[in-house]
């Protein structure tokens, strides 16, 4: 057995991404067991606080996606009970989980970010939708992407190619949250770069190139095995690959993240990486990107998760 002691993998929760989280949690727990770590996987519910107070684990691997898991709330609770955990602290999560805020900060650090507008549904209601939508399209241009300001797995996200499709896209986004991020659709190669730090500084894993058959990496393309082609390392020249790696490291540092993050980027025709968003609890399912990147780097997933836990426990 490892010397990590008892480890808790937290997965599930009440967010829209519960199902994905449960699958990620199972995979992380299995990977950890395969390298001799004593693991318990459990949900986040009313009994968690008792557990943390009366029988705390040596470390926690939070694999909770979406609200509570990635917005810093759960991590604040773990901090309250002094339980070490893998990943960014509560304050950094609050920033990173809010896509517009994260985008602004990452942009200030020098990365390219798509021009965007952030609008709550209250604004549309109070000021009228038709004129506002017209102005949005004029400023951002088509095609554009609409997605909830907070959330993941592309839930509530749409690509808008014609102006008449914008109202549906807005309503679709607002079903998942009250604020929408509307940004220019950047044409190019979609890649994801994982950043890991097991105690010796953040380092990038090979970029994973994403080619969904449908042309849009939505929920179905993400979680239906076979629906997306992944190429790893991404087919980028050395300079572009290095630029993508630098972009992910820059985002990781600019947002004050630690241990593990995954930045989603688009590389345009000139080889410029554009930052789209960052994930502080990236997916670890059978069709997720971080395990693919680890494999390409020659790192066993269980070893990576164990080393991340060890680094967290040593803090």
């Amino acid at each position, binding site marked *: 057995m490892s010397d990590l002691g008892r480890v808790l993998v937290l997965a599930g929760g009440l967010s829209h991404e519960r199902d994905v989280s449960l699958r990620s949690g199972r995979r992380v727990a299995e990977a950890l067991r395969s390298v001799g770590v004593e693991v318990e996987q459990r949900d986040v519910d009313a009994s968690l606080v008792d557990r943390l107070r009366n029988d705390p684990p040596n470390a926690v691997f939070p694999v909770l996606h979406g609200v509570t898991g990635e917005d810093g709330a759960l991590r604040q609770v773990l901090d309250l009970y002094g339980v070490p955990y893998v990943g960014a602290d509560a304050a950094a999560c609050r920033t990173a989980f809010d896509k517009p805020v994260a985008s602004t900060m990452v942009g200030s650090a020098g990365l390219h970010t798509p021009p965007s507008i952030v609008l709550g549904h209250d604004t549309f*209601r109070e000021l009228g939708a038709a004129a506002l939508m017209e102005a949005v399209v004029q400023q951002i241009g088509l095609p554009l992407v609409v997605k909830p300001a907070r959330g993941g797995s592309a839930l509530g996200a749409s690509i808008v190619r014609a102006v008449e499709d914008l109202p549906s896209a807005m309503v*679709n986004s607002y079903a998942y949250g009250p604020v929408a991020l509307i940004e220019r659709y950047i044409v190019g190669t979609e890649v994801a770069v994982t950043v890991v730090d097991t105690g010796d500084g953040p380092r990038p894993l090979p970029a994973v190139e994403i080619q969904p058959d449908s042309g849009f990496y939505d*929920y179905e393309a993400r979680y239906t095995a076979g629906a*997306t082609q992944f190429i790893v390392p991404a*087919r980028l*020249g050395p300079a*572009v690959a290095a630029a993508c790696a630098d972009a992910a490291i820059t985002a990781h540092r600019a947002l004050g993240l630690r241990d593990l993050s995954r930045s989603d980027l688009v*590389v345009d025709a000139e080889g410029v990486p554009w930052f789209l968003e960052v994930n502080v609890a990236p997916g670890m399912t059978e069709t997720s990107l971080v395990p*693919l990147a680890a494999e390409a780097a020659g790192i066993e997933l269980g070893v990576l998760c164990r080393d991340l836990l060890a680094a967290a426990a040593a803090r």
Partner: protein
Amino acid sequence: MSADLPDVRQTRLDNYVDRYAARTKGMTASEIRALFSVASRPEVVSLAGGMPNIAGLPLDVVGSAVRDLVIDHGATAMQYGSGQGDPGLREQICDVMRIEGIDAHPDDVVITVGSQQAVDLVTRVFCDPGDVVICEAPSYVGALGVFRAYQCEVVHVAMDDDGIQPEALEQAISAVRAAGKKIKFFYTIPNFHNPAGISLSAERRQKVLEICQKADLLVLEDNPYGLLGFDGDPMRALRADDREGVIYLGSFSKTFAPGFRVGWVAAPHAVREKLVLAQESATLCPPVFSQLAISSYLSRHDWMGQVKQFREMYRERRDAMLAALTDKMPAATTWTKPGGGFYVWLTLPDGLDAKAMLPRAVTARVAYVPGTAFFADGFGSQCMRLSYCHPTPERITEGVARLSAVINEELELRQTFGPLPAGHGHDYDAPGPELS
């Protein structure tokens, strides 16, 4: 960009992606289905599941029956059995069907792994790819899944408060045949319909039978809820008035317990012979242990008394739901008033889309099944199925209040953005059977 890096791996994370049968085309991840994972949490009032509420079962009686079964007949109960099913249970099933006017012989009955397998076997025996099955609009999601698996075309026919509309049925039969297509059967749930919650009236039953007889169209009568009516005696089954033209499907899942997975099909002789062979190729035999356990329960317990208890419990829940809907729902929302069974079918005000609204509902801690799950043709976006079978009356009231707030928010949003095109369905927009 260049591709001169070594060791590039291209993968779809599915080694068999080019080998699947065409019928798996729609088997993809559904974000709606994933939301039902949240609905399983106790914080959420789930009006989505169809799980029978079997908390009132006399577990001591069942336990004693199962114990005796193992001790006294274990060698038989744990052995293979007949593909047609246990003869003793088939006799008891005939007694059950007699309550709804069916005069059947045990030889007419084939026991199946729930009535779901009966739908599968009948479809397997009758349908080639492209054949048409006529269904009510809406129809049972599990049956639609079977028809899709056998690559049938489903033609829906409108219903009203008395069940399927006979004129619409006649028109559909004519239109399909005029298009040169073969209709293999008309699939119907005449009692306390899932999901519509309504029953085919006595007058309509005769009319529907006449239409089908005249059109030489086989009827597949699926009747899992027939004994769960809240008022009066059970309705007379279609099969009771047409032995040759109606295949009848029954189930113990709602009158006893679904975990045993025992249902049955009563069919004309020639069909039955094929169903037995189809059953043997599918499972060799239905589970013997389950059959004998149910047989013992039926013979040792006042099972009709238990059904009566179930009815009273479901009636209380139905009443709670209808009262809450009347109290809370915004204007222009309509719903059916079921006289039995598990479900209310709710139609939202114009312009609302139940599927698009579900994430908002889950955030508000209430869940339902969007209407698109009950149509094979993408319709139903303005509707939803609400089940009252499992939550307590208090939880139902709370769930409807939450749903009402969600609908009001959605109305406001739709007013802001104006009329939008109706959403489309996904083949797997319904929860799995394990959701309460």
